[in-house]
């Protein structure tokens, strides 16, 4: 896949040269996981009120304007797992999504922004297993990986063997990333051993594919549970932890994000392994995408502003970003119909 952004800009990829293609797995050390450390789970403390106060000031302590905002929004696009998980998806709508992933912005906007050489594109396309093959075909040559939601998405209550089969099938169909869901009951009952074993098995099934573990935080009841589940997922070898399926009553929120990101930070301190974060669900505005970027920059560092370690799972977000970028370019407020639909 392509991440022109990782390179030295002076060496450049201007003039439509072939993109430098590197597979994620080859560039970043995978998270091998570690033995389940129950004692560290017991020690975890999350003060909800304090976390919420922190969350409330993430969007008020930081902001980006003008060129900075435009650049940051472009960056947000490159971190986008462009997603369609609708029951009425057809091959046609999936192909449309893939086309949008390849070319998320109107050419004239790219030119006005002076970023044609950056080859701005979405980080990945995220679909159900049934549409993996279609998406892989539609994205051929783009370097954009296909993500399959899996393991009984969204509730995670399929038979365990079927969950594993589903992962294998998606890999065979060409998915390079697998977003698995956890069994919420294990977390709610505090049965961390079982959750750990389940995720170890998923991780093994994923092989070389990136595994993102969806915690479905909207169903975990407390931030303490979110903190513990995050740690278990990382110990089990998750490459990313992800907030939501988009189907829970509460989607990605900044307080949840803070708790998960701090788990990633702790894990990094403890093991030296950098793992990724993916908020998903309910992120529809450019402004909220920026808040997530502030969160990553403030609580982590700039490495977490890149798709290797940060993704935003969204479908409608791109449309708002397009409008904001056009506003930056023209100084006039834009309209959705001026931008190619998904």
């Amino acid at each position, binding site marked *: 896949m392509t991440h022109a*952004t990782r390179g030295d*800009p002076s060496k450049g990829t201007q003039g439509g040269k072939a993109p430098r293609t590197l597979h994620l797995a080859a560039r970043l050390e995978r998270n091998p996981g570690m033995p389940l450390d129950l004692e560290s789970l017991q020690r975890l*403390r*999350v*003060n*909800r*009120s*304090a*976390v*919420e*106060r*922190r969350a409330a000031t993430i969007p*008020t*302590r*930081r*902001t*980006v*304007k*003008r*060129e*900075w905002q*435009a*650049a*940051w929004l*472009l*960056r947000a696009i490159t971190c986008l797992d462009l997603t369609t998980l609708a029951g009425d998806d057809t091959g046609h709508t999936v192909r449309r999504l893939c086309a949008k992933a390849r070319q998320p912005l109107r050419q004239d906007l790219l030119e006005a*922004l*002076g*970023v044609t*050489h*950056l080859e701005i594109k979405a980080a990945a396309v995220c679909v159900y297993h049934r549409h993996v093959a279609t998406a892989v075909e539609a994205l051929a040559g783009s370097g954009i990986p296909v993500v399959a939601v899996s393991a009984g998405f969204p509730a995670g209550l399929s038979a365990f063997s079927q969950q594993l089969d589903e992962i294998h099938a998606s890999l065979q169909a060409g998915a390079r990333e697998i977003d698995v869901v956890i069994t919420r009951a294990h977390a709610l009952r505090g049965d961390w051993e079982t959750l750990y074993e389940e995720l170890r098995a998923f991780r093994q099934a994923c092989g070389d594919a990136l595994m993102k573990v969806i915690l479905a935080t909207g169903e975990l009841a*407390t*931030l*303490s549970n979110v903190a513990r589940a995050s740690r278990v997922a990382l110990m089990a070898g998750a490459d990313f932890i992800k907030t939501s399926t988009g189907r829970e009553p509460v989607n990605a929120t900044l307080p949840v994000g803070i708790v998960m990101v*701090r788990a990633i930070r702790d894990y990094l301190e403890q093991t030296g392994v950098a793992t990724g974060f993916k908020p998903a669900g309910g992120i529809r505005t450019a402004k909220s995408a920026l808040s997530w970027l502030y969160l990553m*920059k*403030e609580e982590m560092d*700039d490495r977490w*502003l890149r798709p290797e370690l940060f993704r935003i799972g969204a479908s409608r977000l791109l449309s708002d970003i397009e409008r904001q970028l056009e506003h930056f370019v023209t100084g006039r407020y834009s309209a959705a119909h001026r931008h190619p639909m998904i």
Partner: protein
Amino acid sequence: MSTVPEIFETMEYGPAPESDAAALSWIKQRGGQFGLFIGGQWVKAESGQSYDSVNPATTEPLARISQAGGADVAAAVQAARAAFPNWSSVPGHARARHLYALGRAVQKHSRLLAVLESLDNGKPIRETRDLDIPLVARHFYHHAGWSQLLETEFTGYVPVGVVGQIIPWNFPLLMVAWKVAPALAAGNTVVLKPAEFTPLTALAFAEITRDAGLPHGVFNVVTGDGETGKLLVEHPDVDKIAFTGSTEVGRFIRHATAGSGKRLILELGGKSPFVVFDDADLDSVVEGVVDAIWFNQGQVCCAGSRLLVHEGIAERLLDKLRARMEKLRVGPPQDKAVDMGAIVAPVQLERIRELVNRGVEEGAAMWQPSWACPTEGYFYPPTLFTNVSPAATIAQVEIFGPVLVSMTFRTPAEAVELANNTTYGLAASVWTENMNLALDIAPRIKAGVVWINSTNLFDAASGFGGYRESGFGREGGREGMWEYLRPDWEEGAGSAERAPQARPERQAGTATEPLSAPGSPLPQVDRTYKMFIGGKQCRPDSGYSRTVRTPDGQRLSEVGEGNRKDIRNAVEAAHAAAAWGRDSSHYRAQILYYVAENLSPRTDEFARLIHAMTRCGAEAARHEVEASISRLFTYAAWADKYDGAVHDVPLRGVTLAMNEPIGVMGLVAPDEYPLLGFISLVAPAIAVGNRVVAVPSEVHPVAAAELYSVLETSDLPAGVVNIVTGSKDTLTKVLAEHADVEGVWFFGSADGASEVERASASNLKRTWVDTRLRDWFDVRQGEGREFLREATQVKNIWIPYGE
């Protein structure tokens, strides 16, 4: 100029300035200079003097400000006095409408005020926009409510009069609101002296009051430096001074107003502890520290400036803290994406630098982030000191800048000891996920505000104010309203001031009853009244006795001639009895009932003593003893009923307003009603958990001295009540000067009261002096909530919750 592709790579933050155009043009429209706001008009200062208010981020002058002189302050006080009769007598609802309008107006002009504040003070626009100005509006709305409810909720109370208010530069407009809203709500009129460095928002607010139709003279503004403040403090027609600022100036004000009859509230400095236990959410602790010491560049009186950390987690926490400090952004205050702006003025910047240098010289390890501060303007980076001992200057002195000192502890007890190892007592922050621990520690820290797992939370419904040398009085909530009210019975009583050492007018008694039973063939057994210290009868240290005489000059008895050492011993005994304050109020009630029970059978004996001393008549004397027994019952009744409150603040959590005892108090009893007056002071003080050193009437000490024989039989723990007889002036002075006495009540002459107030400045102890003759039989004057309020201080404990 950075380009989009460049920023796309660097992912840096860029400038995000809030425009200052509207605020600068607002200043310009006013000619770039401001007069004084007196009687609803802008007037030129008689003094003819002026100075520049400077933008500390650019060092550019913003506006020319008038320096009010004596004639100007006098004119403002006169305007406030003239407005008082009408403002204080209109219905509460009318004042409520005015305060409501002020809250509305603040919201309507919120951004202008936020930008002006940021320009004048140097604090980040984020803070003025999101914290200062919304809280200002909140204070006016909240107090509009108190105004509406005043007649029913504060029945029997009237406004104090003309209030002089002097506020600091760290929260210029917020302090206007904290001071002005309750004062106006209660029906007072105000002369406000904003801080020299930051007058602009107060002047803008003056304009707002005028436009909102506040009656002329109700609110007046005199600008200037400390000299102007001094003129206001010393003006004879000011009834009350409310001051927020340094402890040094607070002490001066206490001195300057001693004996003037002016009421006083002081909200002073702090060196507030930020206590972190090993089970805290450390990442949240780090953000708490940011909010504690890097909020408003650390120029916050209640800043959590002493980080006390459990040894086992100290290194881990400090590592996290250093990492967080690297992420802080210091820059132009109007930039919407900075965490810290500029220090208010060069003098403050210099003080911070000096103290930091001192810290380094004294061997503490200093750490600052790797990035550099802007060099134009008065900026200072966030600074962390480790390896700090309690003896270090930086651990003791209020720095009032973005400088944190950290120390470690091993046990909760040691944490409390370190937390209280300061002359201040403004606020504290306690971090633990163990509720048992949090609620155990909060009452043991000497501070007016304790935040559990949080810091620097403020609201109009919750009282704010200090213990110890952080001042006294509360701002906000019901407790804050009392500061601007006084009992209405005082209206007439003011004229009946005591002459110095006056013998109270008493009904001349006709019967002369001897102390021993008449007709006994034996000589009377000698009765020696000793001191009562630490539960023991002690001879006076001096070895002298003083003769007590009847009004007609007959020798009645002797009492010990107490001296400084007796007071010293009594104070130590009182401190040793600290458990009394922690005992249950039910237990304290039982003891008070028991004292009454044991006094009751000795009614005749005490009546004889009273009559013998005062010749008041047998009936009157008996009446006094019975009233004393009733008074003991009153406070036995109150002991378990003087509840605190749960304030309704906008927070998921509770704010507990706890009435805590002041500690060790000196009580100097009035000469009138030698038993009832004495018990009227001792009973409320001990009912709420204080331990007292009580000085009976100098002229009529015997009944109070005899009382120890009652106390001894009533299971009162040793040291709770200590009685020292002798010269009122001598003993009062020792008590008022004693650094380990936390409060003094004085009922006596104006000179004596003045001495108490003056001497109290040394440790800013709470004083309650009354030079009027109270009718101690009148339950409104002689007992009740007024006494209980004076015997307690409110601690607000903020407990956010939620899992």
